[in-house]
């Protein structure tokens, strides 16, 4: 591309000129003030000012009028005042005369009054004294009464207190008794429960033991029958043994069912018969093992009865 451009210098010049033009245009365009929203506030301000001026003019006129009126009023008032002054002086003189007269009359009256007053005072004093005496008596009486009442009240209160104490005591005793009773009851109950539990446990244990015993018994029966079966299977009964009575065999076995010894208990029968039984037992060595090892017995007594 560069090679191509170098071959065409005119293209570069053209491009540069174009860009220069565009840039110059852009700069010129933007160098102006950024456009601002124009708000003409001036008009509004003028209006308000005008209005104020008009108002002031009107106000001046009104004030002038008011001043004139006031002046007139003041003049009238002054004339009136003078008139009143004259009236007042005349009235004052008249008043003085009347007052002198009054004073004289009043003095005479005062003298009379004073005398009357003295009399009344004396009377009042006597009355007061009497009243005081009566009052004192009454007061003493009231005091006595009050004392009496107080004492009575004290007595009553004391009585009441005593009663209250008694009541409280009684209550406390009652409570104590109640508590004791409750405690005893609780203990008894606990004891009874413990007893019950113990009994139940015992019963359970007994039941379990019985159960175990039963189980063992059944297992033992099983064990014996297993042994008997095995021996019976191995028993070749003699053909001409004659009577075949019940035969009791005592087997001593070692651990694992190994037969150690075979002895005959009550076994009536021919010698052949007994030998056949012994052979059968010996052939059954080792004897079957019990399901529960606790059932193992060293000595086993078996009773055989040949089937018909």
């Amino acid at each position, binding site marked *: 591309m560069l090679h191509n451009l170098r071959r065409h210098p005119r*293209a570069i010049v053209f*491009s540069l000129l174009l*860009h220069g033009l565009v840039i110059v245009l852009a*700069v010129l365009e933007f*160098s*102006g*003030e950024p456009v601002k929203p124009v708000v003409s506030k001036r008009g509004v301000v003028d209006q308000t000012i005008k209005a104020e001026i008009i108002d002031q003019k009107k106000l001046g006129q009104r004030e002038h009028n008011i001043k004139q009126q006031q002046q007139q009023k003041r003049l009238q008032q002054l004339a009136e005042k003078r008139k009143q002054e004259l009236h007042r002086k005349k009235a004052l003189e008249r008043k003085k005369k009347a007052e002198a007269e009054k004073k004289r009359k009043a003095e005479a009256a005062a003298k009379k009054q004073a005398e009357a007053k003295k009399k009344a005072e004396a009377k009042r004093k006597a009355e007061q004294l009497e009243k005081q005496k009566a009052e004192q008596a009454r007061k003493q009486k009231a005091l006595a009464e009050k004392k009496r009442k107080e004492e009575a009240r004290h007595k009553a209160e004391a009585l009441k207190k005593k009663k209250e104490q008694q009541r409280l005591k009684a209550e406390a005793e009652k409570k104590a008794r109640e508590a004791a009773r409750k405690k005893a009851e609780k203990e008894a109950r606990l004891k009874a429960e413990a007893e019950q539990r113990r009994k139940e446990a015992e019963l359970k244990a007994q039941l379990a033991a019985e159960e175990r015993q039963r189980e063992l018994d059944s297992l033992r029966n099983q064990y014996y029958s297993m042994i008997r079966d095995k021996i019976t299977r191995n028993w070749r009964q003699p053909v001409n043994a004659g009577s075949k009575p019940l035969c009791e065999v005592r087997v001593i076995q070692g651990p694992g069912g190994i037969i150690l010894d075979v002895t005959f208990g009550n076994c009536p029968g021919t010698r052949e018969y007994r030998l056949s039984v012994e052979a059968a037992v010996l052939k059954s060595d080792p004897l079957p093992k019990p399901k529960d090892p606790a059932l193992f017995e060293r000595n086993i007594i078996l009773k055989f009865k040949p089937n018909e």
Partner: protein
Amino acid sequence: MNEMSISHLVANASLPVQFVLLVLLLASVLSWALIYIKWTYLKQCRREAKTFEGRFWSGINLSDLFSQLSTRQEKRYGMESVFENGFREFARARKAELSSADVINAAHRSMKVATAREIEALENNLSFLATVGSVSPYIGLFGTVWGIMESFRSLAGVQQATLAMVAPGISEALVATAMGLLAAIPAVIAYNAFATEIDTLVARYENFVEEFTGILQRQAQAPASTAAASI
């Protein structure tokens, strides 16, 4: 100078933004230069094709036409080049006494190759325009994003942010996007225009190749003595 003028904004921009602006300016300059070159070249090709077709169909003797072309000093391009290559190959094949089908094939092949070369010349550097057109908006956007990031970062420590504090920064940053678009739009328009133009030219060349092959076929059927005869 005014506070918000373009030159002030550019001068005040951060370094990456200035770099982006520079890159975009360069891209714009180059793409306009290329547009100029391509424009003139395509115009030339169009004119050449027209004049050559006029001469070719004017009934001139093909050998004469060929000798005229091959003796000219200037470098031949466009349809002339295709014709020259085809005819030279045709003459050589005939001299080698190949069968007529082979002769035609050789000439045709040679003309195809010449056409391909011409197409290459036409489309040369066109991809640069496409690249500028598609990429420069992104470059501008990068500059803008960077500028906005900067202007917001300067806000970080401020208690009361006002619009007046961010606005200059954002305005500054947006210059980059404007620049990117300014570079991209002419490039895309020019690319599309040139692509259509080149397509029509190529179609014209290929048509010529087929027609000329037909003529050569007719000549190949004729005896070698009349090979140089007029069409």
